[in-house]
């Protein structure tokens, strides 16, 4: 392993809140990777028949699981909106420092709002955890 500093050499940067939007996109991405695993576990449980589903449903409706769903709702909302910001950047738009700072706040606000909307629908929409 080389002794020179390796990229990304995080400790040399001055803190900026736009850094939070960047690292949060990675964190939420990792959380959603776990979400894919959870989705496939659920699909496999349904494929296993009524008994296998009932066993999985007990696990999937535990308080810890519900806390995970709340986290996943935020991870999904944030990663979706931050991802759209990235796609807009890829067209060459919005890359100026001021624009990026403004869109960072917008991503934060919109993802919190979307999380609340999804949470509201999940809680009051008639759907209950399995």
């Amino acid at each position, binding site marked *: 392993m080389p002794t020179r500093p390796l990229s990304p050499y995080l400790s040399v940067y001055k803190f900026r809140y736009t850094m939070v939007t960047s690292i949060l996109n990675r964190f939420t991405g990792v959380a959603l990777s776990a979400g894919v695993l959870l*989705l496939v576990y659920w*699909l496999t449980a349904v494929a296993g028949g*009524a008994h296998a589903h009932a066993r999985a449903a007990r696990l999937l409706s535990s308080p810890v699981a519900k806390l995970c769903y709340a986290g996943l709702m935020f991870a999904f909302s944030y990663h979706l909106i931050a991802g759209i910001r990235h*796609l807009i950047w890829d067209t060459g738009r919005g890359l100026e420092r001021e624009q990026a700072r403004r869109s960072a706040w917008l991503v934060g606000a919109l993802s919190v709002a979307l999380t609340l909307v*999804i949470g509201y629908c999940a809680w009051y929409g008639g*759907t209950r955890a399995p």
Partner: protein
Amino acid sequence: MSLRSPLGKVLGTGSAQQGVHHWWVQRLTSVALVPLSIWFLVSLLSLPSLDYWVVSAWMAQGSSALLLILLVLVGAWHSQLGLQVIVEDYVHGVGVRTLTLVAITFAHVLIGAAGVFAVLKVALRSAQ
């Protein structure tokens, strides 16, 4: 004229010529996941309950089965590409990095295959 040094050529250092492809596939999968994930969330929230019979009837519909398979495959693909970049950024030991990347790739292929198999099993079971 090549600007690469003979030493660099021999050591095989420099770009692996794969970066743009990785970047592009990550974008393609992200664009596909916008409608797929929104469809999944809206469908899930629209189900009257998440009981076994309700969910399996929903999974057995042709359109749901097809979109679920796409969601699992594209989601797993996007996840693999994303985790790969994180490992390449932060895991610096060559041996550990290679092992981690291989494990991540295998795990994602397994997850993708298991998801497709599960959806097909439900969809084809009720088609009989």
